[in-house]
């Protein structure tokens, strides 16, 4: 476990320190918060896609479920915010359990079914018939718990946990077993790996972090509509950030978020369609010329990238 402590010391610790200190020197707290949220989501995608090969095209379903779990706890039971965030995570796990049959599907089928599942959850939550519980399409307003500072630090904590989980996967027999399942499920099960249990754990872990992120997001913004928290952009951004850096590594998704989300904030707000164009071209170029992500530039030269 020497490597693990090295990774904790040189990757996780600086990341947490930087994001914990930045609000003091940089004024745009919303931007910092979004960076942290996308770091969590990109690493969550990394856990499920990088280590098990399931592409979660509807990853935002967990995020939205977490946000609504938070909102319902606060609205109906007046729960304190941190507890409600935990409930958001549990709601996402419950949704993950509900969707475990999807893991039977493979490849593109899983991705499409997952996308459909997230849209189904969106339309379920936004259904006017459920206005009494979720406020339907009219959105929720949670001014009572509004506290962006606490929410920001909660997000940093969840980010630390998520990156910690990825470091664990990268350095443990469990993570190695998962990658074996990804490469060849039959051989892995012959070698004594319990495939179903392994996949379930990775799937639920990635659901949990997205749910926690969703709950914290709800806490931070406090006013939102179903279309905001179930926006397909979260899934897509998280997947593309993770892929851009390189999945099944610790640093890849972090690099991806910092670079791509940085570019997004430089040009995306003023001229969204030009950003969309550049972004689309970037994705296509990435798949065609660099399918293993930015880190493959280094690994091709024989450098080891954590």
């Amino acid at each position, binding site marked *: 476990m020497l490597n693990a402590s090295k990774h904790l010391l040189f990757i996780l610790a600086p990341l947490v320190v930087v994001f914990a200190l930045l609000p003091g020197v940089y004024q745009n707290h919303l931007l910092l918060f979004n960076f942290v949220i996308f770091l969590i989501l990109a690493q969550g995608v990394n856990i499920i896609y990088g280590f098990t090969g399931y592409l979660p095209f509807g990853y935002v379903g967990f995020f939205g479920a977490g946000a609504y779990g938070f909102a319902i706890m606060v609205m109906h039971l007046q729960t304190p915010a941190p507890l409600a965030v935990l409930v958001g995570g549990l709601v996402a796990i419950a949704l993950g359990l509900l969707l475990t049959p999807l893991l039977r599907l493979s490849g593109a089928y899983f*991705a499409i079914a997952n996308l*459909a599942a997230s849209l189904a959850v969106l339309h379920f939550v936004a*259904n*006017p018939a459920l206005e009494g519980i979720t406020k339907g399409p009219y959105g929720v307003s949670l001014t009572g718990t509004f506290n962006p500072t606490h929410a920001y630090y909660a997000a940093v904590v969840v980010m630390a946990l998520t990156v910690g989980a990825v470091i664990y996967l990268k350095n443990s027999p469990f993570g190695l077993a998962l990658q074996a399942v990804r490469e060849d499920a039959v051989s892995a099960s012959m070698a004594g790996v319990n495939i179903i249990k392994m996949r379930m754990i990775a799937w639920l872990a990635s659901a949990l972090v997205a749910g926690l992120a969703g709950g914290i997001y709800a806490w931070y913004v406090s006013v939102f509509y179903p279309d905001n928290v179930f926006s397909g952009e979260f899934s897509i951004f998280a997947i593309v950030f993770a892929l851009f850096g390189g999945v099944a590594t610790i640093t890849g998704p972090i690099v991806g978020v910092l670079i791509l989300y940085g570019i997004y904030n430089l040009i995306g707000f003023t001229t969204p369609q030009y950003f969309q164009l550049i972004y689309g071209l970037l*994705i296509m170029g*990435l*798949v065609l010329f660099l399918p293993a992500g930015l880190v493959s530039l280094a690994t091709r030269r024989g450098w080891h990238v954590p």
Partner: protein
Amino acid sequence: MTYALVAGVLFGLYFSLVGIGLNLVFGVMRIVNLAHGDILMLGAFIALGVVGIAGIDPLFAVPLAFVVFVLAGVLLYWVLVPRLQGSANPEMLSIILFFGLSQVIEAVTTIFAGTSERSIQSRLLGTVFTTIKVKWFGGKAAGAGPIQIFGQGFPAPWVIAAITSLIAIGLVYLYLYHTRLGTLTRAVMSRRDEALATGIDVDRVSAAAFGIGLGIAAVAGVFAPFMFGSVTPAFGADATVTSFAIVVLGSLGNPLGTALGGVVYGLCYMLVQTYLSSWADLLPYVLLIVILLLRPSGLLGRRVRVA
């Protein structure tokens, strides 16, 4: 009830047309064309262009859209697919690649056309028929009013779209089962590597299928402004998911199953909309998941799935 059923069949036929191109592309190349809905959207913009610039019946946009997108499809195939097929996991990466393409298409359309909703007056569709009728048989130029089926009036564009869809599906059937290229296409569909080994020019056959798939999508797009009321550059994403529901319902990799899938989908959609309207939006997604889990090979499918 009759209204819902007939409308369901009319919409269903149209939905088959929407899905069939996607299925052809997936069946032949194992590529998930996430930009499918955006091709539809572009087809709709061709119809808008034909009406806006030439001021003629949007039906003339059908052959135009088809030819333009067959050519575009073949070109696109040669740029994107051979490289993609060479990568480690083409099926998965194709999702991301074509998502990128859909972003590019959406962005470019937004830059040139803006984000406002566009629609075409529905009476313009089919004016060519009334003109011909007046020229050849005399009589008065009546506006294309509702068409009577089983004593219920349906908007003329729905009927025209359904008939065009039937013709198009028939042509796809002819292409697949009664031409040499079609036979080769089916060979590539069932076993790509064996087809390659028998000396079939897999790339050329695939390029043709890709072009035809895109062409059909664009034809379906021509009718989109009439069937859905209006189109925006962002309309593509929803159309893609709906197409997937239809295709999976029929059976992935079997283009003719899509015709059945489309009709079943159209009927369900209309019935749910009539009796449980607030839940209608959920339908395509739930249907998609249930079918994938219970009968992953679709309603008509043999076990074509490798997984």
